C-alpha cells in the first residue's frame, strides 16, 4: 500500500522535474548534461509552479481535475515546451562536464556538503513517511480543499467558500490533489512525502543556483545551517503552504539577483514562473512577488541593466496569473485579502509594537538559530568590502519583506501582538525573511571573499 503510494509520488514529482527541465532547455540554459543536473532543482520547482498556475486558471474556468487531466497536462505541457525549444533552435545537451575544473578542496567540500545534506534528507524521509495529519491549518482547510478537488474535480463552491481561509489561493490543494491521484487514493499519511519532495527540490534549487556563484566552503555550511534551524526542522513537512511560498519567493529572488549580475534572460523567465507560483500559493506571495520585482526593477533602472522591458513583461505576467483566482473568490462573495483601510487607521503604539514583535521573532535564536545574525554580518561586510549592488538588492528586499510582516500585524486590528502562531502568523511569515537571508549569505560572503574586483 505505502510502497505503491510512494512510487506514485515518485512518478508525479519526476513529471514535475521533467516538465520544468524541458522548460529550462527550451530557454537555452541546458547546454551540457551537467547543467541539467545542476539546475534540476530549479527545473523541478518551475514544473511545480507552472503545473499549479496552469491548473488554477483551468479550475477557475471550470475544467475538471482528474487523473487523465494530470497525465495530459504533463504530456502536452512537456511536448509544447520541447516544440518551442526546437523552434528556437535548441540542441540536446552535449557532454557531461562543464570544462570548469574545480580545485580538490572545492570538490571534497562539495562532496561533504552533499553527503551531510543527503543524510539530513534521509532522516527527514524516515520521519515523514509515517507522519499523521496534525497541524490545524492542514486538517482544517488545506487538506479538505485538496480532497474536494480530488473527489469533486474542481473548486467546490461550498468547500472553498465556507472553510477557514477562503481567500487562500488553491495551488497547494491542487498539488495535494495531484498527489492523491498519484498515490491512488486519499492517503493523508503518505502524502506528507509530497512535502519531502518539495524540500528536496528547494535544497537542490538553491544549491544548484549558487554552485557556480559561491565557493563550496561558503555555500554548504550556510545551506546546512539553514536546514537545521529549529523552526524549519519543525515546520518543513507540515502540510501547509508556508514553506512552498517561501521557496518560490526565495528562489525567484535569487534568480533576479543573478539576472541583475549576469543578465541571463532565462533567469527572468524562470523567476516569473516561480513568482507567479508564489502569488497563487499564499496571500503574502502577492506581496513577496511584488516586492522582488519592484526592487529588481529599481536596481535595473539605477544600474542601467539592459533587458529591463523583459523584467516589466515578467512582472505583468506574474500579476496576470494572480488575477483569475481573485476574480473567482470575489465572484463568490468573499472579501479581499488586505485589511479594509490598508491599516492606516491604527495607532502609533500598535505600529511600534508590531515592529518590535517582528524584530523579536526575527532574532529569536530558538526559532532561527544564528541565521539572521550571520546574514546581517554578511550583508554589512558585502556593503563595505564586497558586491554593493548585490548587497543593496538583498538588503532592500529583505527590509521590505520584513516591514511587510510588521504591517500584517499592525493592519489587521484583530491580530494580537504576540508570537503565538495560533493567533498571529508572524513566525510563519518571518520564514521567508530568514530563508532569503540564509540563501543569500553564501553569495554575499563570496563577494567579500573575492573582493570588489569580482563585482559585475
Amino acid at each position, binding site marked *: *500500500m*505505502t*510502497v505503491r503510494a510512494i512510487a506514485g509520488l515518485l512518478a508525479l514529482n519526476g513529471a514535475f522535474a521533467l516538465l520544468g527541465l524541458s522548460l529550462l532547455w527550451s530557454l537555452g540554459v541546458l547546454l551540457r548534461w551537467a547543467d541539467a543536473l545542476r539546475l534540476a532543482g530549479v527545473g523541478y520547482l518551475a514544473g511545480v509552479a507552472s503545473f499549479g498556475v496552469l491548473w488554477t486558471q483551468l479550475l477557475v474556468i471550470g475544467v475538471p481535475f482528474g487523473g487523465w487531466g494530470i497525465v495530459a497536462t504533463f504530456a502536452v505541457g512537456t511536448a509544447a515546451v520541447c516544440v518551442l525549444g526546437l523552434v528556437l533552435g535548441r540542441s540536446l545537451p552535449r557532454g557531461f562536464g562543464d570544462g570548469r*575544473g574545480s580545485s*580538490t578542496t572545492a*570538490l*571534497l567540500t*562539495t*562532496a*561533504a556538503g*552533499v*553527503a551531510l545534506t*543527503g*543524510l539530513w534528507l*534521509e*532522516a527527514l524521509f*524516515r520521519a515523514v*513517511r*509515517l507522519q499523521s495529519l496534525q497541524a490545524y491549518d492542514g486538517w482544517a482547510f488545506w487538506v479538505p480543499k485538496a480532497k474536494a478537488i480530488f473527489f469533486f474535480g474542481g473548486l467546490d463552491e461550498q468547500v472553498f467558500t465556507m472553510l477557514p481561509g477562503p481567500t487562500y489561493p488553491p495551488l497547494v490543494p491542487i498539488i495535494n490533489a495531484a498527489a492523491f491521484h498519484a498515490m491512488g*487514493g486519499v*492517503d493523508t499519511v503518505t502524502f506528507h512525502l509530497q512535502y519531502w519532495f518539495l524540500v528536496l527540490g528547494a535544497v537542490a534549487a538553491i544549491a544548484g543556483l549558487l554552485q557556480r556563484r559561491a565557493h563550496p566552503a561558503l555555500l554548504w555550511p550556510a545551506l546546512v545551517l539553514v536546514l537545521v534551524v529549529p523552526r524549519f526542522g519543525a515546520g518543513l513537512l507540515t502540510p501547509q503552504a508556508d514553506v512552498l511560498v517561501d521557496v518560490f519567493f526565495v528562489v525567484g529572488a535569487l534568480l533576479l539577483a543573478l539576472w541583475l549580475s549576469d543578465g541571463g534572460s532565462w533567469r527572468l523567465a524562470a523567476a516569473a514562473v516561480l513568482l507567479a507560483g508564489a502569488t497563487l500559493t499564499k496571500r503574502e506571495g502577492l506581496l513577496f512577488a511584488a516586492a522582488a520585482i519592484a526592487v529588481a526593477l529599481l536596481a535595473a533602472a539605477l544600474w542601467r541593466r539592459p533587458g529591463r522591458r523583459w523584467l516589466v513583461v515578467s512582472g505583468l505576467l506574474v500579476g496576470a496569473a494572480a488575477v483569475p483566482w481573485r476574480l473567482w473568490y470575489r465572484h463568490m462573495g468573499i472579501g479581499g485579502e488586505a485589511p479594509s483601510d490598508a491599516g492606516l487607521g491604527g495607532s502609533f503604539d500598535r505600529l511600534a509594537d508590531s515592529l518590535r514583535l517582528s524584530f523579536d521573532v526575527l532574532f529569536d535564536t530558538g526559532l532561527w538559530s544564528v541565521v539572521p545574525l550571520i546574514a546581517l554580518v554578511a550583508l554589512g561586510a558585502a556593503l563595505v568590502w564586497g558586491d554593493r549592488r548585490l548587497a543593496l538588492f538583498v538588503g532592500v528586499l529583505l527590509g521590505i519583506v520584513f516591514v511587510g510582516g510588521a504591517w500584517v500585524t499592525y493592519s489587521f486590528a484583530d491580530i494580537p501582538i504576540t508570537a503565538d502562531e495560533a493567533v498571529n502568523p508572524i513566525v510563519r511569515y518571518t520564514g521567508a525573511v530568514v530563508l532569503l537571508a540564509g540563501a543569500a549569505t553564501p553569495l554575499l560572503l563570496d563577494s567579500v571573499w573575492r573582493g570588489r574586483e569580482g563585482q559585475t
Partner: protein
Amino acid sequence: MTRTSARLLAAAIIVVPLLAYPLMAVGGARFPSRDDCVRLAPEGETGALDLVFGRRDTVAEAERLLEQVRGVGYKDAELQGDGCGRWKVLYDGIESYEQGASSAEQAHGAGLEARLELEPPG
C-alpha cells in the same frame, strides 16, 4: 592527489554515509502492510468484537459482498473503510466471544468467510 583519486574520494564521501545510514537504521519503523488492519480476536477475548465477512479493494466490490451477506440473513451488516485502503463488510452486534464464534460458524455454513476481529479503536 591526482584528479581521478580526488573524484573517487569525493564519490566515497557522498555514497558511503548515504548507504550506511539506512543500513544502520534497521529496526526503526517499518512500512505498514494491509495486514496491520486485521486484528483477529484471540480465544476468550472480552473486548469489543466485530464479525468481519471480508475485505475488498473497491466500494463496488464490497457492496456486492454486503448484498450477499445481507441475503444470508445478516440484515444489520454494514460497510466500513478498514484504515488500510480497503473496504470491509462487518456485523458489529457481537456481544461476546462465544456468540461471535458461533455466528462465524453459522456464516461458514452459509458459504461466507467470516472471522471474529477486534473492533478498531475510535
